[in-house]
């Protein structure tokens, strides 16, 4: 054991295992690494001395694929990055291309997009809550969360026929108008959902074990969070009030009244509270938006064949997991010259190493859970 | 089969098991296997206690020896488990001298027991007073807390000292 050399531990002052150190491979097949993340942990007893993230098991070359597809054809691919929040991905992509084209979606389309995206945020956070709770050992919230998520997926299914990888929006607006009873269904869901969030909070927020497991675990200070480029709830949990919906409003967000919840200590508990509050805020936005969906066309004036002018554009939206940015370079043809995606999960994941050092194995799963990563997006 | 016969069969079975376990304990290469055989031997000894009517000691042997000390042993073996140690020489060089000495000791003690039996001093002694009641636990408890109360307390202090000693010694940064 004395001469077991470990390669690939950047910055590790010691490359030789100590007498009571072991190396453990978390993933790529592990119940709680949320996909195919692999974390190599060097443990002293149960304490983490060093860690290394190994990713790429789900790499599909999405950015490269974009260079060989027309702008419309690439639409469905973005759904497959953050597959639990496909609608948000689609929104970001559509808006980026619209910006490149200089076109704008009509108001009705914008409002419907806002509603669906906020519903998607709720569903993504619900899935996060369920899996995060199950990582920490609370089995039951998952099923309550899935129950509500099912309602949202049913709305999606009725709207566009797909539940997960929806491809709900089109460049320039929407392909489908809302179905009959859309408003009532969303409204009924939203009115009911407030009580559901209360239910989850009743199970967890005040629970002594839950607090013990999450408070003070995986602290990320505001300065660190900004340095690492963390966005979304991870950043807001550290107490930075930054939300693209407010900072650079897109879609119809400037019309609605909502707040940005922030945390204080930047620990797992704060991020949990932030996400719970975000669900309530999203719900609020949905309720406001559903009240009056303006009448009018749903598709803006874009041609059948999209040929954006030569140029480049960066557009980002606030996806459930953080800032989702699309950087598109056009060379004037029907296919993008280069698409670069700024995935929130990938950049938030970088904080993992800093957050888990000195913690126990059990905290690693809590911290991976609190970062809310989706490997489809990390690896692209 | 009478209870006495069963008891006899049980004794020889346990005795054989204890000796076999002991032999394997000191001869096998793998430390964990060695510990397993020691556990076997200790359990067999507990069985021997049972044939002697010492029920309480039987339970204590299992709870403390097997369930306590041996778990500690295995715990430590796992903490310091060295695959290297498996391939090293298991017996030291002067082993044969030690073995010889041990055999001499064994023959001496064996003869002592054998001759004592011959002279009849191992028969049921004439001067034996009292009797072991079947209510072993009560008898044990009364004797422990009346006659041997002080040694009992001293033993607990010994355990406390050992506890502190073990913690201090294994603590990483004192």
């Amino acid at each position, binding site marked *: 054991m004395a001469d077991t050399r470990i390669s690939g531990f950047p910055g590790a002052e010691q490359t030789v295992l100590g007498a009571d150190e072991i190396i453990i491979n978390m993933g790529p097949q592990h119940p709680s690494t949320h996909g195919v993340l692999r974390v190599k942990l060097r443990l002293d007893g149960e304490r983490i001395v060093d860690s290394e993230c190994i990713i790429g098991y789900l790499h599909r070359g999405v950015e490269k694929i974009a260079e060989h597809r027309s702008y419309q054809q690439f639409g469905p691919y973005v759904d497959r990055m953050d597959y639990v929040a496909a609608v948000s991905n689609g929104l970001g992509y559509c808006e980026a291309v619209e910006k490149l084209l200089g076109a704008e979606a009509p108001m009705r389309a914008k409002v419907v997009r806002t509603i669906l995206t906020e519903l998607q945020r709720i569903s993504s956070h619900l899935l996060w809550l369920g899996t995060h709770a199950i990582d920490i050992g609370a089995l039951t919230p998952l099923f309550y969360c899935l129950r509500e998520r099912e309602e949202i997926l049913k709305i999606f299914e009725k709207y566009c026929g797909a539940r997960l990888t929806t491809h709900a929006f089109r460049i320039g607006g929407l392909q489908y108008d809302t179905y009959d009873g859309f408003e009532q269904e969303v409204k009924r869901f939203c009115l009911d959902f407030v009580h559901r969030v209360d239910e989850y909070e009743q199970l967890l927020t005040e629970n002594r074990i839950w607090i013990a497991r999450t408070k003070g675990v995986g602290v990320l200070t505001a300065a660190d969070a900004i340095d690492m480029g963390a966005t979304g709830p991870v950043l807001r949990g550290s107490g930075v009030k930054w939300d693209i919906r407010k900072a650079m409003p897109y879609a119809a967000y400037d019309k609605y009244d909502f707040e940005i919840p922030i945390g204080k200590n930047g620990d797992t508990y704060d991020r949990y509270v932030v996400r719970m509050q975000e669900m309530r805020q999203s719900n609020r936005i949905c309720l406001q938006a559903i009240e009056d969906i303006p009448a009018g066309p749903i598709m803006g004036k874009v041609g059948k064949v999209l040929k954006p002018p030569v140029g480049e554009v960066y557009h980002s939206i606030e996806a459930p997991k953080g800032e989702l940015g699309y950087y598109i370079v056009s060379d004037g043809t029907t296919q993008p010259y280069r698409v670069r995606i700024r995935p929130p999960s990938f950049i938030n994941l970088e904080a993992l190493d800093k957050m888990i050092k000195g913690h126990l194995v059990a905290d690693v799963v809590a911290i991976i859970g609190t970062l809310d990563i989706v490997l489809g997006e990390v690896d692209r | 089969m009478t209870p006495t016969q069963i008891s006899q069969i049980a004794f020889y079975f346990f005795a054989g098991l204890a000796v076999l376990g002991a032999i394997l304990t000191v001869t096998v290469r793998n430390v964990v296997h060695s510990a397993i055989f*020691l556990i076997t031997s200790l359990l067999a000894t507990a069985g021997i206690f049972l044939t002697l009517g010492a029920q309480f000691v039987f339970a204590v042997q299992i709870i403390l020896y097997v369930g306590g*000390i041996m778990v500690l042993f295995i715990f430590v073996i796992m903490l310091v488990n060295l695959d290297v140690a498996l391939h090293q020489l298991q017996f030291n060089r002067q082993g044969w001298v030690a073995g010889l000495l041990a055999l001499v000791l064994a023959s001496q003690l064996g003869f002592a027991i054998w001759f004592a039996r011959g002279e009849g001093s191992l028969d049921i002694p004439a001067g034996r007073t009292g009797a072991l009641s079947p209510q072993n636990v009560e008898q044990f408890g009364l004797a422990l807390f009346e006659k041997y109360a002080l040694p009992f307390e001293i033993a607990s202090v010994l355990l406390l000292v050992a506890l502190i000693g073990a913690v201090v010694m294994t603590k990483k940064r004192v």
Partner: protein
Amino acid sequence: MIPIGHYLFVSLALFIIGVIGVLTRRNVIIILMSIELILNAVNINLVAFSRHWANVDGQIFTLFIITDAAAEAAVGLGIIIAFFKNRETVLADEMDLLKW
């Protein structure tokens, strides 16, 4: 009734095996375990004589010996762990320094 001599022989066997283990093995943990064997042999003797004399005192001494064994194991294993952390070995003949 099994004669007490049989118990004594079993005890003797365990004792001798324990002595051989202590004297010949190199692994400290096995040496410690051999000491447990020796203590165990003593226990058999004590309990056997306890029945022989129809007196429960022998059994009580067994309890004390088990207590002692526990203390010895705790301290002994503590030493082994401390030693292992410093020298990464558990072999008795490599324990050749009085002070580390």
